């Protein structure tokens, strides 16, 4: 997967709470058998009108926000269905990090497999970040675990293994194969009742 160390980029704010994976990528797009090409369908029902035209009022469609790489959102982001396609849609669109009040467990794990950095910040920090203008940058420094905007620097927590994985862009399966002997030994002692 693509490594994540530092990111300086434009941000877009979609402040709603409980944005579930049905909203991020509706189910009609789960029929693809590839991992790519989902970006155009990201937030489909919010992004497009019923006739297929762009909903110009939606943040993601505003010309000033094109090229944004950081999404700032509310609480409980990525709840609902386990579809990793939601993460692929965010990365395919160009997002490298999502800053929210909290993430569903499955969405969080899916993000760690795809180089999309999920950052949990409290409301008091996000309130300040929500003021970000279209021509302003936000800096994310993963080794330092900080988000910087104007004169503000906020610290975030992340499990040390996930952090290392992001920084190195590691492939999980290769890593696990190192434990082949332990896995084989485990299999021998598993209970078996026929």
């Amino acid at each position: 997967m693509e490594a994540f160390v530092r990111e300086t980029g434009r941000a877009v704010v979609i402040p709603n709470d409980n944005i579930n994976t049905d909203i991020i990528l509706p189910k009609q797009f789960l029929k693809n058998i590839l991992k790519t090409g989902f970006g155009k369908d990201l937030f489909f029902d919010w992004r497009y009108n019923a006739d297929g035209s762009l909903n110009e009022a939606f943040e993601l469609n505003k010309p000033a926000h094109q090229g944004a790489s950081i999404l700032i959102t509310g609480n409980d982001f990525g709840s609902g269905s386990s579809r990793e396609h939601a993460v692929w849609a965010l990365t395919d669109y160009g997002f490298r990090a999502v800053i929210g009040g909290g993430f569903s467990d499955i969405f969080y794990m899916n993000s760690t497999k795809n180089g999309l950095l999920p950052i949990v910040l409290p409301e008091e920090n996000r309130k300040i970040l929500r003021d970000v203008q279209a021509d302003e940058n936000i800096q994310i420094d993963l080794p330092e675990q900080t988000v910087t905007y104007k004169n503000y620097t906020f610290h975030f927590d992340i499990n040390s293994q996930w952090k290392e994985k992001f920084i190195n862009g590691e492939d999980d399966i290769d890593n696990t194969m190192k434990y082949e002997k332990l896995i084989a030994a485990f299999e021998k002692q598993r209970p078996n009742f026929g």
Partner: protein
Amino acid sequence: MSKTLFDKIWEKHVITGEIGEAQLIYVDLHLVHEVTSPQPFDGLRSTNRRVRRPDLTFATMDHNVPTKDIFNVQDQMSRLQMDTLVKNSKEFDIPLASIGDDKQGIVHVVGPERGLTQPAKVIVCGDSHTATHGAFGAIAFGIGTSEVEHVLATQTIWQVKPKTMGIKVTGELPKNTYAKDIIMGIIAKYGVSFGVGYAIEFYGETIEKLSMEARMTMCNMSIEAGSKTGMVQPDQTTFDYIEGREQAPKDFEAAKKYWSQFYTDNESDFDETLTFDVSNLKPMVTWGTNPGMATPVDQSLPEIKDDNDANAYEYIGLHPNMKPVDINLDYIFIGSCTNSRYEDLEIAANMMKGHHLAPNVTAWVVPGSRAIRNRAIKTGIAKIFEDAGCEWREPGCSACLAMNPDKIPAGKHVASTSNRNFIGRQGAGSRTHLASPAMVAAAGIAGHFVDITTDEFV
């Protein structure tokens, strides 16, 4: 040392790693379906990897399956996904219950039905409703597509051990209220994200008396509370359900003895505990766009507290102070991994027996598996639905997520036994109201929700 059910099973599955960090966990059962498996198999092919344990893997088709004419797959993308699973199962030697097969059905219905779902196992599937299997005292959770590939290749998964939460359920269930009402009541009370970061165990006198089907309904919707794992301690009810099933352990006594060591020692072992008393529980109905937006059937819909509520009311076309009885229904849907088991169909059929659907109500009854469908035909339940004017369908996920031809049209209200009332979930613009099978069946007859705990019904 005193431990929870979750802790005991977890410890038995750790291959390496320390608590607090990611640990490598062995997977005893990997369930596979057509939507979240094409990319993982492709990944295996491109890296020349094999499936480590095809014997611990089971595949079926459910999400895309047309339920009206199961072999007539019109949607080319659906057809491609289903054909891809057939090809991949063959190439990687994985047992597959394809459409038309006696064992085909919704993956979370079929696993238990075949006897594959057993206590003390770690069970994963690329689907968030995998929590269902926790009803057997297993650690069961949904995983993403990359994780599916990882499990196929290594039969293991990296996870940070979650915290544990005990939900003690007490009191006697009032007549015509069900497990669905308990879990919806819990989510209405505590919200849709209180379970994030926790593995939930449901326990207490009320849970002990529930059937396996009812326990599955509860665990199934743990994910709607934010918890990817819900579980119930295995007991005699669990053992009786498994015994005699196709994949039940051959040395059943030895298995039972092994399973009997898995229980929570003390309530104080949980990191967090909640309580829920069902003595005065009423049937629950959702009015909004997440499962926490629910109300007892006899109460008025709540006032608007914030933008989330305002947006939900706008989408759903209702307003505060209306009551569930005021919601005019266009469709009813009885099905999904939450409520499509034989017991659910039986309860719904009892409610419909001798009645006919209200004019203008379309009803789809979709059994969770081929086996359930066959049994319901044999016992006459299917006939009750048909006589009432319902469409009796083939097994699949159907209108729960509408990835198949079963879609609720825009603006139409549907009473649904499924699990998610998200915007557009059951079809673009569809308006979902979640409830128990008995409530949905009664609503189909009346054309609107009714309080089935009143004298007229009990």
